[in-house]
């Protein structure tokens, strides 16, 4: 009953004309970003974040979330038509989607991708709505040691699944913690790592690092070459985009599989939509009666991963909103957005800000309907985005990045820092250091330090407090276990296979 009341309230918020507009803007931008290879949701959300500071927070979070899940719809278009994933979550869709396109069934592949995304995306939101409130109530019993342990576990999971090298992922996370320490220590007012610069006393702005590492790093990396991919002609007319009844029948288990696997993986920090779609594809193949045909253009090979990567969004928002723990680079930016607007995601977020939580949930139902409508008949139109010349696109992204940073602080020093982090983002890509652990370390750094220091204040300096409380002991043991996985050959092989996807 409580959930139903909340949802009705959420629809009242989401149906406000301005919020409907922001929802549309978000899913529209998300679709475009998803279609464009080389520009992902974290980069886009980071770039647009400063521009939301003057917006109503409900409209702003509805728009940013729209970009997040809208990109997953759009990503399938590029995967199916060009064999190039529009964003990382659509990698697995390339396998059967592109083969279907080569056989002249691009329309059916795009259609089933949109329908699977809609079904699983809606199930994911349903999961978020049902799981988040009770989890938040349970988390009310958490104190500083549990929070420290939870953040350590989240960081460990992200490190495990962020890149091939655990050492590099850990180093990235530790550098993120260091960047988070720059500025004035709030416990003792000591200035740390400020290099004598007044501008650094208040710390390094999250937005500067996120835009530098994600947006600029991505653009510089893409500007290394001038290659253009070839586009398969789009089928004309909506009739070609609707899958047949047989296609729908063949995909019915894939819808369910994608919805459940995607949501469950999403709730785990570090899981992410790429892993969700890979697992869902693997499961679909394992139980299929025609498993030998996977990879040759099987419709359920498109439906399962596309469903999973959309359902994952709902799952990923559960730990973010109820525990304040982001599980990926994108959700870390959403966490920073909420904090910058003056909110504190955690167990009290839902009761204290029902407008925001239920408004977001309701907007996601509406957004999924908008995306279905946008993606079914309008795919040919969206595919034209792929014809945007990169020599025009990249300068525009650089421009929006600079405006975004400058508008947030009005500081030329921040623009200089943006250059530094842009270079860092590029070098990290070149040297195979994953960006997600750095961003997560930065997002969680001050919270982790605060939780650890408060824990030790409670215990008069004894570290035993972290292992003497059952929940924190279990979570720290799990974190340790997670980091030891690469030492076990079989588990590490599974991890590397997941990353290969």
């Amino acid at each position, binding site marked *: 009953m409580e959930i139903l009341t909340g949802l009705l309230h959420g629809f009242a918020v989401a149906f406000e004309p301005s919020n409907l507009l922001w929802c549309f803007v978000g899913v529209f931008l998300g679709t475009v970003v998803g279609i464009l290879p080389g520009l992902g949701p974290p980069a886009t959300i980071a770039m647009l974040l400063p521009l939301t500071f003057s917006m109503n927070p409900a409209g702003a979070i509805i728009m940013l979330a729209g970009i997040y899940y809208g990109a997953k719809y759009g990503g399938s278009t590029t995967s199916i038509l060009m064999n190039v994933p529009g964003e990382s979550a659509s990698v697995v869709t390339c396998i059967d989607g592109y083969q279907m396109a080569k056989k002249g069934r691009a329309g059916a592949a795009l259609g089933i991708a949109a329908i699977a995304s809609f079904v699983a995306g809606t199930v994911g939101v349903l999961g978020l709505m049902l799981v988040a409130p009770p989890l938040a109530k349970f988390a009310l019993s958490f104190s500083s040691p549990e929070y420290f342990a939870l953040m350590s576990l989240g960081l460990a999971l992200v490190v495990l699944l962020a890149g091939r090298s655990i050492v590099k992922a850990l180093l990235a996370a530790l550098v993120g913690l260091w960047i988070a320490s720059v500025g004035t220590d709030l416990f003792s007012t000591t200035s740390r790592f400020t290099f004598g610069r007044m501008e650094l006393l208040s710390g390094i702005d999250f937005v500067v690092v996120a835009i530098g590492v994600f947006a600029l790093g991505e653009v510089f990396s893409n500007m290394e070459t001038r290659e253009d991919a070839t586009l398969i002609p789009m089928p004309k007319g909506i009739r070609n985009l609707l899958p047949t009844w047989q296609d729908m029948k063949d995909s019915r288990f894939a819808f369910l599989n994608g919805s459940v696997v995607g949501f469950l993986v999403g709730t785990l920090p570090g899981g992410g939509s790429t892993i969700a779609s890979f697992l869902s594809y693997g499961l679909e193949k394992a139980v299929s009666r025609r498993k030998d045909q996977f990879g040759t253009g099987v419709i359920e090979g498109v439906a399962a991963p596309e469903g999973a990567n959309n359902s994952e969004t709902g799952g990923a928002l559960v730990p973010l909103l109820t525990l304040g723990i982001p599980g990926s680079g994108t959700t870390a930016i959403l966490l920073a957005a909420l904090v910058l607007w003056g909110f504190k995601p955690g167990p009290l977020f839902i009761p204290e800000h029902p407008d925001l939580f239920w408004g977001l949930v309701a907007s996601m139902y509406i957004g999924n309907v908008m995306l279905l409508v946008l993606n079914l008949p309008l795919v040919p139109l969206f595919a034209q985005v792929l014809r945007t010349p990169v020599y025009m696109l990249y300068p525009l992204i650089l421009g929006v990045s600079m405006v975004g940073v400058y508008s947030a602080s009005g500081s030329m020093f921040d623009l200089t820092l943006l250059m530094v982090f842009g270079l860092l983002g590029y070098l990290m890509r*070149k040297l195979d250091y994953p960006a997600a652990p750095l961003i997560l370390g930065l997002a969680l750094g001050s919270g982790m330090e605060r939780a650890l220091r408060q824990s030790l204040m409670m215990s008069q300096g004894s570290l035993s407090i972290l292992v003497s409380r059952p929940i924190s002991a279990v979570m720290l043991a799990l974190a340790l276990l997670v980091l030891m996985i690469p030492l076990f050959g079989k588990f590490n092989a599974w991890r590397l296979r997941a990353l290969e996807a």
Partner: protein
Amino acid sequence: MEEGRGSGDLWSGIALALLGIYITAQACQWEYLGPEGPGPGFFPLWYGVGIVALSALLVISHLRRAPAAGKPVEWPRITRALSAWLALAVSVALFKTLGFVVSFALLCYFIVAAMYRRRLRTAAIFAVSAAAGFYLVFDVALGVSLPAGILGF
């Protein structure tokens, strides 16, 4: 991303080790544990030591690998990317003098004409349109202040 892995691991490992040493040295100057609990040096000391240890592991594992591991570094690609970064940095440096609009137009012109070898006329039209578009959308329509130069915009 393979190409960077050869000596890249070695040099990035050394750079990170130096960063770790700096962090540890700084943290040692701050209070570690006081009467009211952990001080400002407590947390940085731990991750500083962690950075040193992990970067040492990275360097050692690189040195133990066969020297031929990894593809050769593709300098032309890196040079292109670094040129774009340098152009952006110069553009930011010019903000105080020329302002955002003119600097951004110059950046667009450089990228389109020099990096993507499009016709000068195309580059000029795009540069002027993009800069004017940014000014109209952000400064005029959205009220976002852009860095102004000696020309006043």
